[in-house]
């Protein structure tokens, strides 16, 4: 990166300035896209697709959490759907039991999920790689069994808040400003954007650099004086927090929660789409959520069985792991750029530039 001898202050200032310009351009593009999603998209889409897009906003945050663990720290968790279910359970319980403002409930469910996730994560962090993935799969399986027995709160009394005898099950409340589906979609997108900003702030600062070091080599990070356990736990806490918040949005989006909606296999599908989308980039999380929630809605509308999608995801995982470890978020732009160079007549295959994956 740094060429020795040329590091005059003028050159550095020029570089910083150039970086600023491209970062500004990128931020502007994201802003325009966000405005389009918030203002134009609800006008363009039918209610059916608005609901699907609300799910995309929720699962983009979930995928982001898993992406942080896999892409930034190198920890694979197969239990993120269970974490999402915990977040949804906690916020549903709080929404029924209290009249707290909705953002406060989201925050609380994020924090409670974070504490639970960290408590579970603390012993699991003894393990690395394969064993960590398998123990999270085991824990997710256990949580699924517990949820199937205690059920989601439906407005009943007691700690669990479940009453199996209800004939008319009350819906989970939504914030007053976002009662309708399009309004709630906008709300979900804003929450997702805040969560993305939170993660970006982490990735760009000290924890992000520590995670990068840990991912490269744990012993080297340790030798460099990085508190490996602290930063690994931090990643777990961050992922659990945003997944818990996403659970709260999900609870209010679907309005009735059932434990069969959170099967263990969803954690596996989630891993598949996150790998396909690209765990190393924030855009990968958006792509993963579109694959996971928008495509099935589209196929369902066309009368195509969602099973085809499962098959495609399976093939996608194999393809990504054998040939394109960085996923669609990087592969497609790279292939398009190659295609463009071919079309533009240059025809010369230059080695693809690996940066800019953010």
């Amino acid at each position, binding site marked *: 990166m740094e060429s020795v001898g040329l590091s005059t202050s003028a050159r550095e200032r020029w570089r910083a300035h150039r970086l600023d310009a491209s970062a500004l351009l990128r931020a502007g593009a994201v802003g325009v896209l966000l405005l389009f999603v918030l203002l134009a998209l609800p006008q363009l889409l039918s209610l059916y697709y608005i609901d699907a897009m609300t799910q995309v906003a929720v699962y983009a945050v979930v995928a982001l959490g898993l992406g942080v663990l896999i892409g930034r720290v190198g920890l694979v968790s197969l239990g993120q759907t269970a974490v999402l279910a915990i977040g949804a359970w906690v916020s549903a319980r709080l929404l029924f039991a209290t009249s707290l403002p909705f953002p406060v409930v989201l925050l609380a469910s994020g924090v409670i999920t974070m504490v639970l996730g960290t408590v579970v994560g603390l012993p699991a962090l003894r393990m690395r790689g394969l064993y960590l993935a*398998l123990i999270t799969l085991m824990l997710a399986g256990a949580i699924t069994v517990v949820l199937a027995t205690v059920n989601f709160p439906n407005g009943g009394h007691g700690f669990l808040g479940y009453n199996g005898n209800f004939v008319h099950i009350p819906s989970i409340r939504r914030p007053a400003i976002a009662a309708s589906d399009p309004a709630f979609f906008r709300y979900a997108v804003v929450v997702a954007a805040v969560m993305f900003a939170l993660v970006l702030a982490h990735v760009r600062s000290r924890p992000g650099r520590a995670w990068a070091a840990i991912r490269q080599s744990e012993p080297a990070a340790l030798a460099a004086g990085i508190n490996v356990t602290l930063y690994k736990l931090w990643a777990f806490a961050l992922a659990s927090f945003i997944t818990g918040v996403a659970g709260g949005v999900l609870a209010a989006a679907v309005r009735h929660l059932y434990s069969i909606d959170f099967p263990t*296999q969803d954690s*596996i599908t989630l891993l*598949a789409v996150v790998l396909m989308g690209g765990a190393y980039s924030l855009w990968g999380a958006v792509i993963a959520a579109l694959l996971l929630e928008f495509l099935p809605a589209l196929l369902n509308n066309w009368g195509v069985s969602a099973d085809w999608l499962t*098959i495609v995801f399976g093939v996608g995982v194999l393809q990504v792991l054998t040939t394109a470890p960085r996923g669609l978020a990087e592969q497609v732009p790279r292939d398009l750029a190659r295609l463009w160079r071919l079309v533009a007549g240059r025809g010369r295959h230059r080695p693809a530039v690996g940066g800019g994956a953010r």
Partner: protein
Amino acid sequence: MPSWQDFQPFIVSGLALGGVYALSGVGLVVLYRATGVVYLAFGAVGAMGALIAWSLINHAAFPDWAAWIVAIVFSAAITLAYGMVFGAALAKREPLVKAAATLGLLLVLFGVMDLLWTSSGGASRSLSLPTDNGGFQVGSVQVVWTQVIAVGIGVAIAAATGAFLRFTKLGTAMRAMANDREITATLGVPVRRVEAAAWLGCGALSGVAGLLLADLVALDATTLTFLVISSLAAALIARLRSIALTFVAAMVVGLVHDLLTPIQSLTNYRDMTPFVLAAVALLLLSQRRVISLSREEA
């Protein structure tokens, strides 16, 4: 607390379940030791074999035994094919990537099964082995031959595999590969052929396990596919190394699971047994923390 009388039948069914877990667990451990792959598609492959057998028996009027053989051959062939294509391509990657890739196979098979043998609409299938009809009495407990076979196969496979790894040339080669693939290859062991043997054996075991579980538990793609997680628990308790420990762990998991059934307050939580036991065992066994620079997992 229920009486001893209530527990007795569950000892038998628990041992039978443990036998199948042992069968699956041993298959997983052998493959892991030879190739470094945790084969998470084990259950899906077995499930598809069982569903094919069901179709052949009910729609193509195959004799039962021919359908079972087709199921086992199918499972072995799919597993071998996966091992030859993706197992080889990923041979030098870390164990986590190898395991995640088998999730790809799991998803493909799961999608195909749900497409061809859809379970929505309440269609329920069952595969019953002829050994369900006969049995004998031990005290007051009725024992079905299928349960005996499940325990028997579990014991036999565990013992045979242990002896195979210990005493045969191929088994020694597999153990050598578990230590270091490159050095084993340098010593003149036909690495690819040994791996192929491990894939084939593991696939055949998944076919047998699929048929037995379809009979003992349910013939349902989702259930059978994700039962691999329970079987994996036994292998994990043995840290994917010891055949004997896998067998013992599988029996304990099966027994505890079924013995919880008559206890009112715990019966709903009995499916947690393998997960909780595996999680606790893993945590206890990983007390010693070693940092290593190699790609070997903790």
